[in-house]
């Protein structure tokens, strides 16, 4: 009985750790999937926006803590500034690197995105530092879990709660508001939507901004949990989130959320029950497995092509 309890609680621990990681993947995957849905572009610089969000958050948190604000105010303002700045960066990047390329070949924006991502990494190295820097534990004191803290850490619970709130907000935005309707219209048929009076350029910019803000929000939550950042943090997360978006069916918003969580859980259980040596092999393995059976991802629509 004792053994069963122990293995049961180990399972739960792994479950929560996977869920935490997965909800971060999901937040970032949303950015990929929204951009893809609306203009069919893999925004490789998305991971770098996440990283820039973390650095802006650190700057703001640092200034406010020198000014002796209280922890909650710091957390709120840091997250807010990070999101605003990430949105501004997302907007600018779209205008500089992708908009002039609209209507050209499918691969040209991809290369432009890879170039942009390199540029942003080097930019942060030069402007800030190539080293790891410590990030304040802003979310540590928010909850006191008492006896449950062996199962899930307070910082992890914060990530879970807030990322789910964010995602719920996004769903409402997409499903219920006029903006969401316009976005969906563009992703279905851009020319038709434009004929019906939707300002497509503005909607595309808005999509980039929302996606970037979500990524920055995720960056603040996870950085406060892990405690350090550097210019490279966006790379692995970006690739994983992209994987999650494809896993769930790229272009589908619930798909991105689901894909992120499946990926997080897979990694966590692979580490817990097999070995962390092959964590990524499992992550990509499940991707291949799902795509073999569902070539458009879990919730993706498999389009029948007309001839």
């Amino acid at each position, binding site marked *: 009985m004792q053994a069963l309890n122990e293995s049961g609680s180990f399972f739960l621990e792994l479950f929560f750790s996977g869920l935490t990681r997965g909800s971060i993947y999901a937040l970032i995957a949303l950015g990929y999937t929204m951009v893809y849905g609306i203009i069919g572009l*893999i925004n490789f610089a998305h991971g770098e926006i996440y990283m820039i969000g973390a650095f802006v958050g650190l700057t703001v948190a640092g200034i406010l803590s020198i000014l002796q604000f209280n922890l909650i105010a710091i957390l709120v303002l840091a997250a807010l500034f990070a999101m605003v700045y990430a949105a501004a960066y997302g907007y600018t990047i779209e205008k500089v690197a992708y908009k002039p390329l609209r209507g050209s070949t499918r691969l040209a924006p991809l290369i432009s995105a890879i*170039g942009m991502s390199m540029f942003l990494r080097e930019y942060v190295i030069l402007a800030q530092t190539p080293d790891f820097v410590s990030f304040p534990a802003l979310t540590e004191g928010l909850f006191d879990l008492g006896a449950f803290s062996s199962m899930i850490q307070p910082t992890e619970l914060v990530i879970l709660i807030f990322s789910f709130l964010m995602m719920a907000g996004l769903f409402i935005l997409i499903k219920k508001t006029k903006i969401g309707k316009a976005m969906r219209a563009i992703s279905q048929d851009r020319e038709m939507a434009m004929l019906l009076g939707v300002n497509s350029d503005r909607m595309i910019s808005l999509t980039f901004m929302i996606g970037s803000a979500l990524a920055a929000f995720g960056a603040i939550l996870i950085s406060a949990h892990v405690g350090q950042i550097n210019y490279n943090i966006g790379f692995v997360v970006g690739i994983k989130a992209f994987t999650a978006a494809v896993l769930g069916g790229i272009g589908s918003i619930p798909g991105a959320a689901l894909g992120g969580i499946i990926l997080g859980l897979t990694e966590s259980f692979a580490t817990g029950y097999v070995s962390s040596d092959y964590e990524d092999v499992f992550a990509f393995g499940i991707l291949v497995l799902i795509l073999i059976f569902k070539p458009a991802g879990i919730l993706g629509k498999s389009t029948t092509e007309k001839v």
Partner: protein
Amino acid sequence: MVENIKKSSIIAVWFIFLSFPLVVLRVDYIDKTIDYRWHNILWIGIGAFFISWVWRYFLKRKNESDKSSEGKNQGTSASTSRFQVQKIFEHKFALLGILIAAAIVPQFMSTYQTSIFITAMMYVVLGLGLNIVVGMAGLLDLGYVAFYAVGAYTYGLLNLHFGLGFWISIPIAGVLAASFGVLLGIPVLRLRGDYLAIVTLGFGEIVRLVLENWDVVTRGPSGIPGIPKPAFFGVKLGFAGNMTYLFYIILALVVIAMVATRRLQSSRIGRSWVALREDEIACQAMGIDTTKAKLAAFGLGAFWAGIIGVFFAAKSSFVSPMSFTFFESAIILSIVVLGGMGSVLGVILAAGILILLPEYLRFMADYRLLIFGALMVVMMVFKPGGLITNIRQQYTLPKRNSKEELAELHSSET
């Protein structure tokens, strides 16, 4: 003018706002210190002002030329086709010129320069190989580096365990990499576009992880040192001689790869790849076996990566998983796209730019990757079709007057 100043000023202010928390402020959270670098505002402002001006100017010119070329296309097609034929000849001469120059060049270069030119030429072959998959067959492959790794490790391991030489390893590695290509091809046959991209990316990562973790066979992250360079008919050449020898081997490989891709392009399979790229369903309807065409593209593309892998192992005499990251795949893909998808001369130029540029930018040490990334964006924005637009082979009939044609038509009818 006033309009431009106004626009550029707004952009300058916007970029100052964007860069402010990162470029001006630097906060140390532990020591509670803020480092202010106000002078950077000036640089960002001036830079953004002028760059945006130039940017707008060139963007306008590009749009205008796009429009005017559209207009031209509606005109007589004969004049454009003649123009293209001429261009093909120009390319041939340019290629020949590059080759001749390349053949003599190591006589005048230092060993270091020879060495980086070898690297550039390796990427030419890799670009030509990936071009088969991406450029011709239109299958987006982000894990091409995996086949490169397979080739390098094939030589490294065969040499370590069985003492096999360079020349014998080349065909083995080529065939092995090609079979890996086919192996990857089978599960992803049903996938399209971006799904394919992420699966191939995953495949590349998996190969690297296996190399890293499977110590018993691959020696893990410590890699395989001391891989011998090819001997020149049993003669030991010394350091400089070795480099020159490698230079000519890779030059020969470039020539062979160029001729092979050229011939492949106009072969039956090459044309079926183009059909596959343009419209898969129509291609199937024409009776082309798409499965076979796709697998052939993956296999043949991987074949070249395998061969260059062997060459890489011989050149650096050391292989480790660190050399086969996603970044490498991204660079090879950039060469293909930047070169103009399918153009041989384009691949050569792009490889030259992407590989030699960072080496020659060394004097700017800190800024070189920043400039490199920015340049990739700029080149794509202003030349999205790549440096050299590939011209599909045209079969021109002897020219006739439309009147004559009509007359002939009439006469044949009667």
